[in-house]
């Protein structure tokens, strides 16, 4: 239980006669070659919200999979309500009252809410599905815990917040008394988060126990009764949410001081690098609504334009349109005054567009290729990777070595496959690659998603340095702090349109959140 930063306010759970709802002692889980969890100790009091915080990759999910019976620990014991248990499958965990709400919803869109909830544990009467009983029980659960959702509605018309309530109901329906919520706020806008927290407080008041996994510290401090911090696979301490600060928590998570997304003095110039005017992109359904309409924006040299938005509002399509992956139906795209709207992706890249795609494993890398082959990817027609139609393997390898050193990619060599690197190091390789060959424009889609704090700081620093020498950056992120901290200007994308301009120096996350859902009117917005 060591910590580089002094753990603030170490509160041990108060000794009580009531057994802990969940008590994990000395849990160790190994995967080939790495220890994912070692000597984890957590005590969760009944009727509380217990937050488990830690960086991405710290081992939170591994631990929760252990608790939910998805795999077995090599060492340690799990006690539920004082009795030692061991699970071979999630079914056994459910049987003792442990339920899990996954980060990614597992709902069938074309079924109704109640159908989704009973799926797999359908109540029957006389061999037939007892619809009335099912719906009655669901409505009763909803009333009791304040989880309001129309049990007859089709899931596909529900918004994200409502879907999450369905997921929670699904778990409650199966009799869970202990709920594990894996990053439940990752997909929610601020207003929906407040709503969720209201629900969680009701659940708590009803005597349920909630284990809340997150790395968003504001949220953790506002909802949790106890906090346990995990770092590098082990529990490094507990904290009292009433007295601990974000910074103290974050430093416990990281084990050292923490990076801040911020820009220094403005480097914005008058020179327009990217100009979009009236750009529209047709939907994939013939005759359907445009996925992007009337997009106009300009990014200057030395400027970062941030785009906020709830996922699925056209960000991916905008990136694809600029990169030439998806054809535009109308409007123009100009790069440094030159029309590139109808060039191939390859030609656009050659004219100086760097691209950090949102899904690094699917779009950014060839996982089974070596690091130097991945260095060539996207730059296969240019020096140093190629000379004419021939690859220049020696030069590509040398340049990969340069990227590994300059961008601090932690790897034993450039011959290993990209798959063997951690997420943060994969991303640093991509950032290094896309900053090569002096781009004039960088499209950065979620550049620090799922990377550790060290890599995040490094990537931000490289963005700042590139901006200082005149790079124009289009930054798309779901992390509002990153957007506010790293942008010179902000805009919001909503249902395929850019709505409003914001000054990152004055805007708050709440204001952005409201704009992202269409002035907070989420229910109308998402159903329509």
């Amino acid at each position: 239980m060591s910590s580089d930063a002094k753990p603030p306010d170490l509160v041990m759970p108060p000794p009580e006669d009531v057994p802990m709802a969940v008590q994990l002692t000395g849990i160790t889980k190994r995967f080939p070659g790495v220890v994912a969890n070692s000597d984890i100790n957590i005590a969760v009091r009944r009727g509380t919200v217990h937050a488990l915080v830690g960086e991405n990759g710290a081992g939170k999910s591994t631990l929760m999979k252990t608790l939910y019976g998805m795999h077995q620990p090599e060492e340690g014991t799990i006690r539920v309500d004082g009795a030692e248990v061991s699970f071979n499958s999630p079914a056994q965990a459910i049987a003792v009252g442990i339920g899990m709400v996954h980060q990614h919803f597992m709902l069938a869109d074309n079924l109704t809410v109640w159908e989704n909830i009973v799926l797999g544990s359908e109540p029957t009467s006389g061999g037939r599905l007892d619809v009335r009983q099912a719906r009655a029980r669901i409505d009763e659960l909803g009333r009791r815990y304040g989880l309001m959702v129309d049990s007859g509605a089709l899931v596909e018309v529900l918004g994200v917040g409502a879907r999450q309530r369905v997921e929670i109901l699904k778990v409650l329906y199966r009799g869970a008394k202990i709920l594990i919520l894996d990053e439940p706020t990752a997909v929610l806008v601020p207003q929906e988060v407040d709503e969720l927290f209201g629900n969680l407080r009701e659940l708590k008041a009803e005597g349920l126990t909630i284990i809340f996994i997150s790395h968003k510290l504001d949220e953790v401090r506002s909802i949790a009764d106890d906090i346990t911090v995990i770092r590098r696979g082990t529990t490094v301490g507990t904290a009292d949410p009433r007295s601990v600060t974000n910074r103290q928590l974050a430093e416990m998570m990281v084990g050292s001081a923490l990076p801040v997304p911020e820009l220094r003095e403005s480097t914005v110039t008058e020179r327009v690098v990217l100009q979009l005017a009236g750009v529209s992109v047709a939907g994939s359904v013939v005759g359907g609504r445009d996925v992007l309409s009337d997009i106009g924006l300009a990014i200057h040299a030395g400027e970062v334009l941030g785009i906020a938005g709830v996922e699925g509002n056209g960000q991916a399509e905008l990136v694809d349109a600029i990169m030439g992956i998806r054809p535009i139906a109308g409007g123009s795209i100009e790069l440094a005054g030159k029309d590139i709207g109808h060039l191939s992706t390859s030609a656009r890249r050659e004219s100086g567009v760097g691209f950090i795609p949102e899904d690094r494993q699917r779009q950014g890398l060839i996982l089974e290729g070596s690091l130097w082959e991945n260095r060539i990817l996207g730059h296969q027609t240019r020096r140093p990777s190629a000379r004419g139609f021939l690859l220049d393997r020696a030069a590509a390898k040398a340049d990969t070595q340069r990227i590994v050193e300059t961008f601090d990619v932690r790897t034993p060599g450039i011959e290993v496959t990209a798959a063997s690197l951690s997420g943060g190091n994969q991303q640093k390789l991509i950032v290094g690659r896309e900053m090569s060959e002096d781009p004039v424009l960088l499209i950065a889609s979620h550049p620090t998603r799922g990377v550790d704090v060290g890599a995040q700081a490094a990537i931000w620093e490289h963005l700042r340095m590139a901006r200082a020498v005149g790079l124009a950056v289009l930054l798309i992120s779901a992390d509002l702090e990153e957007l506010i901290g790293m942008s010179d200007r902000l805009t919001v994308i909503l249902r395929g349109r850019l709505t409003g301009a914001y000054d990152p120096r004055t805007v708050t996350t709440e204001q952005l959140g409201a704009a992202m859902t269409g002035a907070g009117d989420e229910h109308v917005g998402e159903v329509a």
Partner: protein
Amino acid sequence: MTGSRGRRILLGAAAPVGALVFSLLITSLLLIATGHSPFEAFGAMASAFERVRVILGTINQTAVFYLSAVAVAIGFKMNLFNIGVDGQYRLAAMMSAVVAGAAFMDSLPSFLRIAITLLVAMVVGASWAGVAALLKVTRGVSEVISTIMLNAIATFLIAYLLTPQMLAVLEGNNISTPKITEGGQLPVFQFEGSTTPLYSGVFLAVIVGVIYALVLSRTVFGFSLKATGMSETAAIASGISVKKMIVSAMLLSGAVAGLVGMPELLNGSAASYSLNFPTGIGFTGIAIALLGRNHPVGMIFSALLWAALDSSANALQGVGVPRELVTIMQGVIVLSVVVAYEFVRRYRLVLEARDVARALAARNPQEATL
């Protein structure tokens, strides 16, 4: 990462060698169950190679199989399944035989005649494969379906064209394209004690293999081909036009397929395309490419193995074992090797992830965990 190269080769060889051993095991059990002696059977197969004729025949066959495997492998490299190599090479062989046997060729120098023949074969093969490519990029038709159908169409087309009314001549009972006259064929190498010569077509296979290896590892095109095969989404984001790659890979695959019939046509004693022309090599090529993992050197070994098994099959009949035993062996090899390769692939990834974690941990103990 010391010894990683050695390990890579070892791991690469583990699956095919394991599959071969496994197939020997299965066939041994089969032989015992049917009252034969495995030692006698395998002994007879081995002793077939005491004759020079069988060795030369095996080498010639290896070259043909290898060409077919390369044709398949070009598609496989980017997850295109060109099942149509069979139809492509048969149609190409017939059309080029017609051109090579045409009267006007007699006046041309030998070098030019052979060059034209090869060119026609490649163009015909590429065009036939191009039909499938076009269907795929314009209408999204799966190349698996279209190439299988094109195989059937090629069979009928050949039957239609190979009549005296069309392109063939009737000689006695045998119907074939006009015989290629002297100078239209490539020389062969005669060896003492063998009626079968060594085909110069073997060198054609060597040249194709070298070009295949170089294109894959040294050119932008080869890189794009592999990148598309390993991750289409990453290829698109990297500016590789997948449609262009589909068309060029199919055309190249078809062009190489066109060469499959050339050793037989340009070296064989028949010197024409007839109904006796070898069939089914396109399908054998799929198995060989699988076994050789599309690797330019790996496929040499698998083609050699296949040809050797085929050549020794007749010897089995000498000891009263049906020659179809060889077919069973080949089937077991392919089935088990596909499974084994997937195991080895996963094991290799796990192994490497562990090595990297270890190497980094040794450098910086703080990063030992995930």
